[in-house]
């Protein structure tokens, strides 16, 4: 018992030492003028979902690099896709009295209690990338992330504008097959909704088949294989992310068709492999879903701590890419 206590005490001393030395380090090289706590440095606790995709890794990297560049001390936790880990991490940030907490919630519900605790401790909370479903919206300051409905709408807009070229087989109707994301996930639901709302403007565009590809290349390929077997009048593929689109490309090539010409492909994300395929002419249009929200996040954190009003919802800066734009943008692509 005594031994255990000693070990625990030693561990606490060590970790305090590590933390304080870390704090000193960033204090020394930071010229931050924002008012956080008394020492002038902002400390941010960030609870990430996990490292499930290239998109997420780029997201993490952006936050870490921006924090370092702006002299913000970042306490980072990877929840490995588990809500309980994330709640634990947020609790520990509250105990460590960080200045601001930011996190990408693993799931939408179940954060009420821990957010109440943060509010009681006077620590502002910023949501990134994903929203939460809480009774009291004052539990968080703002939500910074992509508007998935808007992404779907942009994809739909492009198809409506390019309807004439997209009717590949020239039969007067544009048959679209949709590769959905993970069933029940917000991006999958919202992107489908946004896309459907825009293509309804043109009667000749019709979604003839829609099935989940689980956001993976393998899933996208297998579903696309099946679509190709049962329907030879497909004009357009709309995939909820690049990876499923890349899987669809392989299926289309295996069927002896040319992706991007015989069947047009629209995807969302703009990760490097997707952009490469777009530049190669195998994809026709990509709507960006930007993971590099570090700069916007740090900016918001400073504003919140300075007592400035911030909007309840901040949309990430995002664009769209055509094939020509992809060729230009590809060399500078970070992720």
């Amino acid at each position: 018992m005594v031994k255990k206590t000693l070990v625990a005490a030693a561990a606490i001393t060590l970790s305090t030492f590590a933390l304080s030395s870390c704090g000193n380090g960033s204090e020394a090289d930071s010229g931050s003028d924002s008012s956080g706590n008394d020492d002038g440095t902002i400390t941010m606790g960030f609870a990430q979902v996990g490292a499930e995709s290239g998109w997420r890794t780029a997201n993490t990297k952006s936050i870490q690099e921006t924090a370092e560049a702006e002299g913000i001390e970042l306490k980072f936790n990877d929840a490995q896709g588990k809500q309980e880990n994330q709640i634990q991490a947020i609790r520990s940030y509250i105990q460590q009295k960080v200045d601001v907490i930011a996190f990408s919630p693993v799931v939408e519900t179940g954060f009420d209690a821990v957010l109440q605790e943060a509010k009681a401790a006077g620590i502002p909370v910023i949501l990134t990338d994903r929203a939460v479903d809480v009774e009291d919206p004052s539990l968080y300051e703002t939500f910074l992330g992509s508007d998935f409905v808007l992404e779907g709408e942009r994809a739909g807009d492009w198809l409506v504008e390019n309807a004439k070229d997209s009717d590949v087989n020239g039969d007067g109707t544009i048959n679209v097959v949709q590769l959905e994301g993970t069933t029940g996930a917000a991006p999958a639901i919202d992107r489908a909704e946004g896309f459907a709302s825009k293509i309804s403007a043109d009667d000749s565009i019709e979604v003839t088949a829609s099935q989940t590809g689980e956001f993976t290349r393998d899933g996208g390929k297998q579903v696309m294989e099946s679509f190709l077997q049962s329907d030879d009048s497909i004009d357009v593929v709309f995939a909820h992310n690049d990876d499923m689109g890349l899987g669809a490309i392989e299926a289309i090539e295996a069927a002896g068709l040319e992706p991007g010409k015989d069947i047009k492909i629209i995807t969302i994300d703009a990760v490097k492999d997707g952009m490469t395929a777009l530049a190669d002419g195998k994809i026709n249009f990509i709507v960006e879903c930007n993971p590099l929200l570090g700069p916007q996040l740090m900016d918001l954190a400073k504003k919140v701590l300075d007592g400035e009003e911030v909007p309840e919802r901040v949309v990430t800066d995002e664009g769209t890419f055509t094939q020509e734009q992809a060729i230009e943008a590809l060399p500078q692509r970070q992720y």
Partner: protein
Amino acid sequence: MPESPTLVVRVLRHPLMWPVLALGVLLVINVGVKPSFLDVRMQDGHLYGNVVDIMRNSAPVMLVALGMTLVIATRGIDLSVGAIAAIAAAVACTRIIGAGDEAALSTAVMAMTYAVVVCIALGAWNGLLVSVLGIQPIIATLILMVAGRGISMAITDGQITTVNNPWFSDLASGFVLTLPLAFLVAIGVLAFTAVLTRRTALGMLIESVGINPEASRLAGVRSRTIIWTVYAFSGFCAGLAGLVIAANTNSVNANSLGLWIELDAILAVVIGGTSLAGGRFSLMGTFIGALFIATLTRTIPNIGIPSDLNYLFKAVVVIAVCLLQSPKARAVLRAGRPSSPRPVPAKAGSPA
């Protein structure tokens, strides 16, 4: 029933009768919805059609299930196969990228050999835990199931790694004699396993270990070596499956590659008529079980089941097949009323 079994009765009593029937019913449903479902044509010098796709897509589950069959026959289970598949893919893809000439045949062969050797070692590790240290198989392999995905993530830095090697790609997308190479590889492993277990005493020894390890040991069977071997073989099969999955999309996503394939494989084994209680096993049954699962996966987009009903549909079909296979459930159905107060035992409890 008549005393001397007629042909019909013999067919009905054949252990493979129910899995084959289930597969047949599934195909009939597909053809009913899309009459062109079974159409096969030549395309760029190879066969092309739903059936060909099903053959190719069944290869990973078939490979994993073959290894799983022998493990289950020794009364064990291997939950780590999905993670091992991910490690194989991660190792192979990073080796291909790191090689001097990324597109060379030698690069692909070296990378794949290396990956398979790693997987045999991982399988042997499972075998060590089970046979030497006496840890329960479900716990022993659970360790690698959880840790293995972490290892594969570490190998790829959590990134989706894309490779450009036509030879590696051929493992999944290539064709030999107009048939998908991946399917032929799976058939090759099936034939190899069948010869090894049925033409030698090995199969009988595996069954005896599964029925009673202690009695087998006392009878002079080296149960420890046999258990060790089947886990290493399961690692080998899982590794091959991982390579096929990675080659199919020329990339490895350590997070999702082979995820839940252990459940599909266990299901394939059970549908094929091998009992989870160990002992008798059927490689042909596993073969048909794997084809059944690949056909079921293809059925969903083919007959247009909405995404949110996918799992429900799969579950209903699997329950139906398991009930069909249970003699007690069949007896109940035939009698039209429960002949026994006890609940009907389903053979598989694993989700689809």
